[in-house]
């Protein structure tokens, strides 16, 4: 038998290659992860297979894959088979060295880095859309006085489409370096964007009827979410870092910023910036913040006459504000003044949609509504 093998070099090389590979995984030995090791019974296997036998085997000891003899030690104490390694090296039958596999901590680190990247992308998105939105609304406010209703609707629809496109485009960029799981996430996000746009188109259809447009007012449970997103867009850096609980004072500040965007030229921006530091009563300021309980009865007399005898421009702005942050009936939720507010329900009912024929401000508010929906959607992700 041995004579026959030595006479045929081809058979000899095949036999040698067989001896220089592991009999379990059929891979050549190498000098890193597949070092040849001999169990105590003398049978030789690579390091990786011996470790797997130890991990997955039924026996508490190392059991030989060939003869089932037990090796009463851990893999660290199984000696390398230097003869086999030398033989393989000299005949050029060693496999290529393989680097150690990645540890689980590096996997966790990669996941954390991806989450941070997505979060940073989201913050960049907010800054970018905030600037673009302020610019668009300034132009919109000026031009809206000249537009017909049909032109206003078309412009609003284009603006909403541009916002949705910008949001989805920026969001997808953050997935470029992600693994295959982000593909499912991208598809899921796309479907939700389509759903949001479909709901927007339904809203647009209702906008042709002033009375029916009230049905698109969000319900009470969504008001808080809208308010938080509003502050995230238009608040300063400190407010973004520390979103607080909704209160009367904060609501008054938000209202002034809102009026600065959608009011006419009489509501100057300088006036808003002047009063932003204080919340006391002002001679020309009809909005009355309920900073504490002691002033409720005193301030209410000044508050409700503005509803009974309104200035047209200011009331239009106020209605858009209620459209965004109010409940189903358009009432603002002043929890501190709940009882007295309900007592004056009759005066509130005197305000109706027909008193505000100009719908431009409402359209602008509706665009902001849609963007806040998209922001809330991103926030959920």
């Amino acid at each position, binding site marked *: 038998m041995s004579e026959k093998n030595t006479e045929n070099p081809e058979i000899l090389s095949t036999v040698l290659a067989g001896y220089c590979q592991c*009999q*379990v*995984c*059929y*891979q050549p030995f190498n000098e890193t992860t597949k070092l040849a090791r001999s169990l105590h019974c003398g049978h030789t296997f690579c390091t*990786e*297979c011996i470790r*797997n*036998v130890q*991990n*997955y*085997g*039924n026996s508490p000891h190392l*059991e*030989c*894959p*060939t003869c*089932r003899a037990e090796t009463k030690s851990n893999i660290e104490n199984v000696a390398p088979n230097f003869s086999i390694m030398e033989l393989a090296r000299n005949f050029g039958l060693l496999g290529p060295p393989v680097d150690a596999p990645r540890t689980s901590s590096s996997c966790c680190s990669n996941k954390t880095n991806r989450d941070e990247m997505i979060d940073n992308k989201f913050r960049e998105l907010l800054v970018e859309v905030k600037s673009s939105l302020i610019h668009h609304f300034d132009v919109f406010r000026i031009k809206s006085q000249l537009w017909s209703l049909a032109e206003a609707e078309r412009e609003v629809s284009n603006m909403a489409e541009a916002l949705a496109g910008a949001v989805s485009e920026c969001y997808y960029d953050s997935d470029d370096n992600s693994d295959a799981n982000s593909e499912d996430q991208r598809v899921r996000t796309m479907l939700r964007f389509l759903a949001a746009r479909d709901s927007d188109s339904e809203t647009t259809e209702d906008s042709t009827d002033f009375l029916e447009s009230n049905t698109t007012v969000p319900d009470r449970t969504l008001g808080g979410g809208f308010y938080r997103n509003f502050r995230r867009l238009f608040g300063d850096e400190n407010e973004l870092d520390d979103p607080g609980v909704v209160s009367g004072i904060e609501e008054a500040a938000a209202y002034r910023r809102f009026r600065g965007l959608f009011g006419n030229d009489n509501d100057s921006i300088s006036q808003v910036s002047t009063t932003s530091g204080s919340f006391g009563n002002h001679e020309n300021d009809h909005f009355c913040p309920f900073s504490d309980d002691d002033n409720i009865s005193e301030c209410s007399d000044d508050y409700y006459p503005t509803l009974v005898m309104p200035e047209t421009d200011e009331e239009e702005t106020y209605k858009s504000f209620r459209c965004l942050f109010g409940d189903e009936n358009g009432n603002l939720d002043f929890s501190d003044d709940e009882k007295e507010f309900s007592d004056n329900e009759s005066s509130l009912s005197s305000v109706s949609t027909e008193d505000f024929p100009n719908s431009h401000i409402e359209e602008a508010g509706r665009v902001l509504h849609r963007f806040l929906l998209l922001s809330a959607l991103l926030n959920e992700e």
Partner: protein
Amino acid sequence: MSNIAFNRLQRECKEVVTNSEISETGIMIEILNENLTEIKGHIRGPPDTPYAGGMFDLDIKIPDQYPFSPPNVKFSTKIWHPNVSSQTGVICLDILKDQWAASLTLRTVLLSIQALMCTPEPKDPQDAVVAKQYMEKPAVFKATAEYWTTKFAKGAVKNAGYQALVDKLKDMGVREEEAVSVLSCNNWDINRSTVYIFS
């Protein structure tokens, strides 16, 4: 499936296909899916046994830790054998359980099952009814095993008497496989089988 398992299975499948022993030993492997997690095995019934002339199919499922965990093998062809469940095809074989070793291959597994068909072990049975018949009524066992080979594994031995009994139960509305199974378990006593079915 791990890289080791995939590479090894590729080689094992080549080994079985190219082995010149196939025509002599009568074992064959058929790959069912590309990732090699499900494989169909074929074993020709050994000569000089009740299973001669039959071709038996087996379902082989490869676990993730293969070859450090044994494959899950069972007959998909019904067979009358003390160490194989006549209902489910589960095999009682030590190398498929605690005596598995990582150097065993699909070829050695199929050869071991074929050897088990030659030499049953009734003292360590998978099917107690078959084992009892094997030990107490060896002639009935042989005839029954031959009948099952003919009925389910394309065997050649005909048994007109047993077929007539099966036809009687079928006339009573019993499904054929159930009729064969009940008659075999009751040593082909038509009265006891009828009572067993309709009681």
